[in-house]
């Protein structure tokens, strides 16, 4: 790997000058470059603004094509040198190094060489080192800003009081017991007990509590253990010195403890955040729609920040000018300043609102959600009053916003893909259905038109026999009826599917339907024997009698169509196990086993194109829909002795029969 330009920056407010110098140089060389950002662990503690600035700077560098290397070490100078040495050792060819040099004042300037000088001296023969003078020193974070004062609650006042009281008790116990073992207890030993209490408080409750503990314990020692006892006065110089030393020690211990505690809290916070980010990533990976993603994010991010979180999605109709947003969660409330910040964030694509340069005055902080594909929306966090933002916050928000944008992008792409696949399938199915239907319509039409045209030409020629005339007329008529029934089927299927047909069920004698069907089918069945069996006297079944009659007619008609001329059809009515059933059995060839569960499928005939007898496709599909709509079902099986049996099932609890019997 080769590398041409290395830019070293740190948290110095003027670090951008180093970057600018490098950027000016870059177009000439067209080089590959890398930015080394060395951050002291506590450099930005208590200075969110500066951290923010540095982050923006790094972002700018990244946008210009730089690779970013981020190191967090105490000795930034040494770290830079080590890093560059490692690069050179790894065979990377660094031709330019840009580094900032801070003007040191006073004695320091005389004795300590700057990092820039050290770099130039060490790597001068490897690379061209450009030193950019930076005005003003890095303002080191003050002692106070290192200590996370945090939130101060009653607990923080109570804790030192309790601790000092406990120390007092322990001291009293020790004093009461120790004289027995011949040991004189003095003020110094007592002081140590109180000091211990201070240490514990500082570690557990932070600096402020520790300071309270120090002051309290100082008072207690002074009052109870220093002569004159029972007064705050000090009689001897020694005592005065002793107790002053105690106070000093207590204060130092408090500061140190508070600092340690703050560091631990910081580390814990960082750990918690990275774990939360990981969790959020895991959770959103599984989400498959935008709503779900936002729901998960809202919940998790709220948990993570402990603040109100909202997402703002621009409404698609307005791309320019004033954009309206859909809020998620819906009940999010924004005031005028917040809305202004939100608009600014969206329009300028930058962080806005609380703690940012844009949209000052808003209590929300808005971060743009953006990927290479474009802007998706705005991610907002409501910063509560008196909240102390730590430096990682801005960075965390930016990375959250990026993550949300990436997730939404993924989900949208996925949806688009599914949508187009679904459309494709539907189109295919529709065209198949259309060609199947057009075949079913055209075949009977072909017979009708053909027969009539033959009839006409024979008439014209004047040599038509009566028999020919009869046959042609019969054929045309039969086919016209077939066409009619097919069209009726298509229409009822469409109406059932669109829910246009309403079923009205009431109690009926199931035998009525059978009689109606047999009457209607008489011309079709001719002299075919139809055996009706089963005792249903008094049975009343809840059914839509008209629709049921249709289904039954369809099935008996099929039985006739698919069995040899003159073969019997058996219709059996049966009541058992909570059901009433019609069984219709033909004595035909039956249905191939692999077709049994597909005969009710509306699309089944699609697989057969135009080889099937017209008008037979939809009848069973309609039967299924009708039976399901009556909470029943229709099933098919082959009879062991041959022929198919179609069964209509109706739920039936038998009570009707009982009442009728009484």
């Amino acid at each position: 790997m080769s590398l041409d330009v290395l830019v070293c920056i740190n948290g110095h407010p003027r670090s951008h000058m180093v970057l600018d110098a490098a950027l000016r140089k870059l177009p000439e060389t067209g080089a590959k470059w890398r930015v080394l950002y060395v951050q002291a662990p506590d450099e930005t503690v208590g200075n969110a603004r500066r951290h923010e600035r540095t982050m923006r700077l790094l972002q700018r560098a990244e946008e210009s094509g730089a690779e970013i290397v981020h190191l967090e070490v105490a000795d930034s100078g040494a770290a830079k040198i080590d890093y560059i040495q490692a690069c050179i050792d790894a065979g990377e060819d660094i031709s330019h190094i840009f580094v900032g040099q801070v003007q040191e004042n006073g004695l320091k300037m005389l004795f300590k060489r700057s990092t820039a000088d050290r770099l130039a001296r060490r790597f001068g023969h490897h690379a061209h080192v450009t030193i950019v003078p930076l005005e003003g020193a890095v303002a080191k974070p003050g002692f106070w800003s290192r200590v996370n004062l945090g939130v101060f609650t009653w607990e923080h006042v109570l804790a030192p009081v309790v601790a000092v009281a406990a120390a007092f008790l322990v001291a009293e116990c020790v004093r009461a017991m120790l004289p027995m073992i011949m040991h004189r207890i003095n003020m110094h030993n007592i002081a140590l007990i109180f000091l211990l209490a201070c240490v514990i408080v500082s570690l557990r409750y932070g600096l402020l509590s520790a300071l309270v503990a120090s002051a309290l314990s100082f008072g207690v020692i002074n009052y109870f253990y220093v002569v004159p006892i029972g007064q705050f006065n000090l009689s001897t110089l020694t005592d005065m010195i002793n107790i002053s030393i105690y106070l000093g020690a207590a204060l130092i211990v408090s500061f140190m403890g508070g600092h340690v505690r703050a560091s631990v809290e910081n580390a814990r916070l960082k750990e918690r955040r990275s774990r939360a980010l990981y969790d959020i990533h895991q959770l959103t990976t599984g989400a498959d729609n935008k709503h779900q993603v936002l729901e998960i994010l809202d919940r998790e991010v709220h948990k993570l920040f402990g603040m109100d979180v909202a997402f703002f999605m621009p409404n698609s109709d307005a791309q320019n000018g004033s954009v309206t947003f859909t809020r998620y969660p819906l009940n999010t409330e924004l005031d005028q300043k917040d809305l202004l910040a939100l608009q600014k964030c969206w329009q300028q694509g930058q962080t806005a609102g609380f703690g940012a340069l844009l949209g000052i005055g808003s209590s929300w902080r808005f971060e743009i959600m953006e990927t290479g594909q474009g802007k998706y929306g705005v991610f907002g966090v409501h910063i509560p009053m008196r909240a102390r933002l730590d430096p990682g916050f801005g960075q965390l928000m930016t990375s959250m916003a990026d993550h949300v944008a990436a997730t939404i992008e993924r989900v949208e792409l996925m949806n688009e893909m599914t949508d187009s696949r679904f459309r494709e399938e539907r189109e295919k199915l529709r065209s198949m259905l259309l060609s199947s239907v057009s075949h079913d319509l055209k075949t009977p039409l072909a017979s009708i038109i053909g027969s009539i045209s033959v009839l006409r030409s024979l008439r014209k020629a004047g040599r038509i026999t009566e028999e020919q005339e009869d046959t042609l007329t019969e054929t045309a008529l039969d086919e016209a009826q077939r066409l009619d029934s097919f069209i009726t089927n298509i229409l009822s299927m469409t109406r059932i599917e669109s829910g246009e047909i309403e079923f009205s069920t009431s109690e009926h004698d199931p035998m009525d339907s059978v009689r109606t069907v047999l009457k209607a089918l008489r011309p079709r069945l001719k002299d075919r024997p139809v055996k009706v069996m089963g005792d249903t006297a008094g049975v009343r079944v809840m059914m839509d009698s008209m629709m049921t009659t249709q289904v039954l007619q369809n099935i008996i008609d099929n039985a006739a169509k698919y069995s040899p001329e003159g073969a019997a059809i058996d219709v059996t009515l049966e009541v058992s196990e909570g059901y009433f059933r019609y069984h219709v059995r033909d004595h035909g060839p039956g249905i191939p086993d692999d077709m049994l569960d597909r005969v009710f499928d509306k699309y089944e005939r699609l697989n057969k194109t135009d080889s099937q007898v017209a008008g037979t496709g939809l009848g069973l599909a309609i039967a299924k829909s009708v039976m399901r709509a009556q909470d029943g079902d229709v099933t098919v099986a082959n009879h062991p002795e041959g022929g198919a049996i179609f069964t209509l099932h109706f739920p039936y609890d038998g009570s009707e029969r009982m009442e009728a019997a009484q």
Partner: protein
Amino acid sequence: MSVIENAKILVIDDTPSIRTFLRISMMDYGATFHEASTAGEGHKLCETEEPDLVILDLGLPDKDGLDLLPDIVGANGSAPKVVVLSVRNDRRTREIAYERGASGYVTKPFIMEDLIETIEHVLR
């Protein structure tokens, strides 16, 4: 008189009503008429009867008419002419039918005069 007179014609179509009116019309023209409702039956008749013309439906229950076409056309020395009679009306099917040896293509529905015209054209 027409070339159809004395021609031996075989109709392969699974719709009985179509065979019916074709039979009446063809016999009226003086043709010898044979009919089959499946591809298998039709193929057999082709070999035994050696028809001059086959009127072939494409949507047959046992085999697609397009797949039967090459078998009929190459059946014997005096290969019959084939007129396809189908509801399929797309250019691709038409092309395949001609590629496989069909001499005419009539789409359903049709009036008898049009079919007669095509048959006369093919047989001439």
